[in-house]
């Protein structure tokens, strides 16, 4: 399949899903919004792929919905509103029921809706210049899914602080590592190589065991 706002690559057993709107901080426009499900599905269904890396082109990892662009596309806006209201979003690997291990490699700013991809990945590593923030409340918007996902996996105070400080504070990569939101911080230039190493190593394990393990871990989060 051809993608306009995403890049989907294969390198041996590792599939790459790359946000590809670097000129707009990789914000999710109408095209990217509709391309996600097919991209995750394609990599998950490919028997040669055993692990998936998710990263971004350019200086930012992912900066959330491109509200301005979406406003110009009433059909996409309606669809995103409906999926938000009903919580039937199909943008992350978790939303799309991906069974293979997913590693997020945060290559720069991860803001607002970008936190979806951190919360919903199995492993997260970050470049040393990566920062995390949730500007929703600074522009009159509610923060919910991303921060709910994060608070199930990280100390809650960190998450509520990020949600309530909005655009006025950023969490740096090293603090995110201390708190267990990411597990490794590497120099920016080495990020993709390190992600590839980790994914290749994971890809050597028994795929059935990985699938079951992933399922059990995520199921455990379904208990209050």
């Amino acid at each position: 399949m051809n993608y306009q706002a995403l890049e989907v690559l294969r390198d041996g057993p590792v599939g790459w899903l790359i946000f590809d709107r670097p000129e707009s901080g990789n914000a999710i426009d109408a095209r990217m919004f509709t391309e996600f499900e097919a991209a995750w599905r394609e990599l998950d269904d490919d028997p040669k792929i055993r692990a998936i890396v998710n990263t971004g082109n350019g200086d930012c990892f992912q900066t959330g919905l491109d509200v301005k662009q979406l406003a110009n596309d009433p059909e996409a806006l309606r669809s995103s509103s409906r999926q938000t209201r009903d919580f039937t979003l199909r943008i992350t690997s978790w939303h799309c029921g991906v069974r293979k291990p997913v590693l997020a490699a945060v290559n720069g700013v991860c803001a607002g809706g970008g936190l979806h991809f951190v919360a919903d990945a199995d492993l997260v590593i970050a470049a040393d210049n990566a920062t995390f923030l949730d500007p929703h409340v600074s522009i009159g918007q509610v923060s919910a899914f991303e921060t709910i996902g994060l608070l199930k996996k990280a100390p809650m105070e960190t998450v509520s602080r990020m949600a309530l400080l909005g655009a006025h504070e950023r969490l740096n990569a090293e603090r995110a590592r201390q708190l267990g939101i990411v597990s490794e911080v590497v120099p920016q230039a080495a990020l993709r190589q390190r992600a590839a190493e980790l994914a290749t190593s994971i890809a050597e394990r028994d795929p059935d065991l990985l699938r079951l393990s992933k399922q059990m871990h995520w199921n455990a989060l379904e208990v209050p």
Partner: protein
Amino acid sequence: MTYQHLIVERHGPVGWLINDRPDVRNAMNSAMRDEFADAWSELDADPAVRVIVHTGNGRDFQTGVDVSELASDGIGMERYRQSMEDFDVHFTSWHQGVWKPVITAVNGICCGGGFHWVADADIVIAASDAQFFDPHTSVGQVVAVEAIGLIKKMPVEAVMRMAFLGKYERMSAQRAYELGMISEVVDPPDSLRDRAQELGETIARNSPAAMAATKKALWGALEEGLTDACKQGAKHLVSMWGHPDQTEGPSAFADKREPDWKPLQ
């Protein structure tokens, strides 16, 4: 309203709730417990207050229930026991359904029941000389509600260790920071209130209505598994649709000006 054991102040958009029994390390007696309920409600109802800071006067933040009163006043003990059995309690912002952002600023010792206000705040900062411990099991008491709140929000081992080591070990502010129980260690300690005010003023720049809905989504998520939490979060998210702040925010951003938010209803 006037209070005997608390001080309620307003500094700009920041409301302050200050424990004021410094001679007994701000231990909570029966009267203070009742005053908490009123003070949280007063600050929550005041539209000029956008963020609430909670701290303590004197050397320490809070040292839990005033055990000497419990021991000497049979009626107070009975009332306290009954309220805990029914979990009909009203002394934290969470108990009182306060949906404004709450910052707890821990000065000195926070022990035992003092953890209620660490567990139930949105943001917790502490002076560099703050200390945390839970003496319940050292004085023949069960650790319960405070620890349950903490366990939902931070690494469990640290909470269990405090519960079982009781008064024989103290956690430093630095360790609390490492664990994500608090997000800032303020040094020197006497700059704690300045920093809390500054943080409060920063948060006050965000949409009050959006923050209230966000708070409901996040605290509601502690009651549910992940998928159900997202579904109930969607309700809070959608509750803001059509609110004037949703258009004011992006246009203020585009115009590079401070947004003019609607006060909380």
